[in-house]
């Protein structure tokens, strides 16, 4: 990755919350790593290692207590706009159709929806196998289908940077596999940068260029594992298993990790 320019640079970021009438809580402590342009980077770590804080900081929704976050060399001081976000839950608006949900970011950014926006959204939906559901309402869809809608929504404004917080966490393992491959395909074709947060180590190893392993709270980098093997990777292969085991050991035994999804 060294030959690529740095997109996101996290420099010694600490975030401490000061809740009223409670002890201060440090979610992240001296977090440092960088993400190259076009990289697929995963963050894994035990629950409560400050992953959601990381998302808020990176999007510019919260300022770090100390340290700096640079995007394209510029400090992030306000919401960064060109980011697509997907969460573990689909978080769709129930009163909007699938298509209207996907178009939401464009409504915010562009104000008016043009026919080409609509066509683009329908193309994205077709890509994830939901071409026939543009006019359906979220409640008519299964959980997995809703999650795919939310991924289309993260992609619709063509952000160069995708921030995904366990986007496949609620899916069954078959759908999860399929979505993982689909995401890889999108990534390979678009050159987008993806920061992918997951609990699933095998998923991280399957997808990423590098895996950043975080410590328990306050979260900081334990190790960055680089994975050079060519894609598609074989989750049954010995190299794959070795990396997986290594990350598992880094995280520690006290954490119960979803295993065997692949």
């Amino acid at each position: 990755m060294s030959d690529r320019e740095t997109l996101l640079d996290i420099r010694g970021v600490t975030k401490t919350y000061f809740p009223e009438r409670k002890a201060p809580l440090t979610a992240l402590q001296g977090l440092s790593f960088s993400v190259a342009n076009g990289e697929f980077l995963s963050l894994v770590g035990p629950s409560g290692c400050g992953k959601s804080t990381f998302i808020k900081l990176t999007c510019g929704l919260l300022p770090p207590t100390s340290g700096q976050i640079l995007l394209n060399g510029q400090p992030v001081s306000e919401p960064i706009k060109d980011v697509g976000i997907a969460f573990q839950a689909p978080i769709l608006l129930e009163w909007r159709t699938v298509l209207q949900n996907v178009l939401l970011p464009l409504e915010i950014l562009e104000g008016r929806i043009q026919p080409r926006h609509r066509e683009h959204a329908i193309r994205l939906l077709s890509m994830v196998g939901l071409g026939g559901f543009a006019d359906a309402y979220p409640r008519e869809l299964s959980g997995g289908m809703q999650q795919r809608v939310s991924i289309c929504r993260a992609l619709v404004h063509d952000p160069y940077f995708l921030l995904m917080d366990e986007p496949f966490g609620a899916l069954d393992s078959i759908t999860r596999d399929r979505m993982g491959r689909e995401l890889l395909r999108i990534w390979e074709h678009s050159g987008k940068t993806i920061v992918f947060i997951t609990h699933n180590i095998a998923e991280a190893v399957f997808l990423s260029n590098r895996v950043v392993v975080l410590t328990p709270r306050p979260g900081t980098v334990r190790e960055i594992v680089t994975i050079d093997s060519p894609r598609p990777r074989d989750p049954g292969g010995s190299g794959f298993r070795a990396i997986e085991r290594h990350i598992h050991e880094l995280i520690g035994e006290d954490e119960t990790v979803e295993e065997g999804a692949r």
Partner: protein
Amino acid sequence: MRTPAEAAPAAVVTRGRVSLPPLGQIVAEYQWPTLAVVVALVIWELVVVAFGIQEIVLPRPSKILTVMIAERTLLLRNMWVTLYEILIGFALSVIVGIGLAIALVHSTVLEKTIYPLVVAFQNVPRVAVGPLLVIWLGMGIASKSILVLLVCFFPIVVNAATGLKDVPGEMLDLLRALRASRTQIFWKVRLPNAFPYILSGMKIAITLAVIGAIIGEFIAAEKGLGLIIMVSTASFNTPLVMGAIAVLVIMGGALYALMSLLADVLAPWRKVP
């Protein structure tokens, strides 16, 4: 608040089109309660006849029905007045309730100052203000409608405020990351999200509205079913008292049913209790 299915055969909306449940389903749903009412009326009739109970104490249902038919013009004319008071007061409470909720949610300062007052006011017997309203607004419709407003705006404020606030934090993160303005978030997410909650509050409020109007008429009125009840009671015309009550029951039931239907049609995406 997220109940996927309700027992009652609500209007079903598929792909934006509203369709009422089949008649058979409605009949099946209401046949037993209807039967129970009929049986109760028959027993009532028989008991009154068997024990020779005086009409002034407890008239027979058939007698009440006869009086209702005989006095239908009187009952209907006064029903319209009561209904008018209810609808004006209810409409005001919807406007005031939603407006207040928006103000509360918009500003922390307002929330901290006004919300406790709203809650405190809820614990004041607002009916006690009724006589004052007569002094200020007279014997006519205005004093009743304002009493209706005072009695029924609370569930609307509370529900609307809850609905405006009950948006997943992640949805707000997503929108703020796109630099959505507060206005955009309000119109695109908060207000539509509050819609089923508001309708749910309106369902509660409409039953309170009927009570408010009747009590207002008890205090001092020129027209209305409440007045009919008071006057008939004074002259020991028990069948007419009960006839007026029956009209009230039917009107209140119809208003509630209408509100329920409205909630199902306007916010089909979420079943509100």
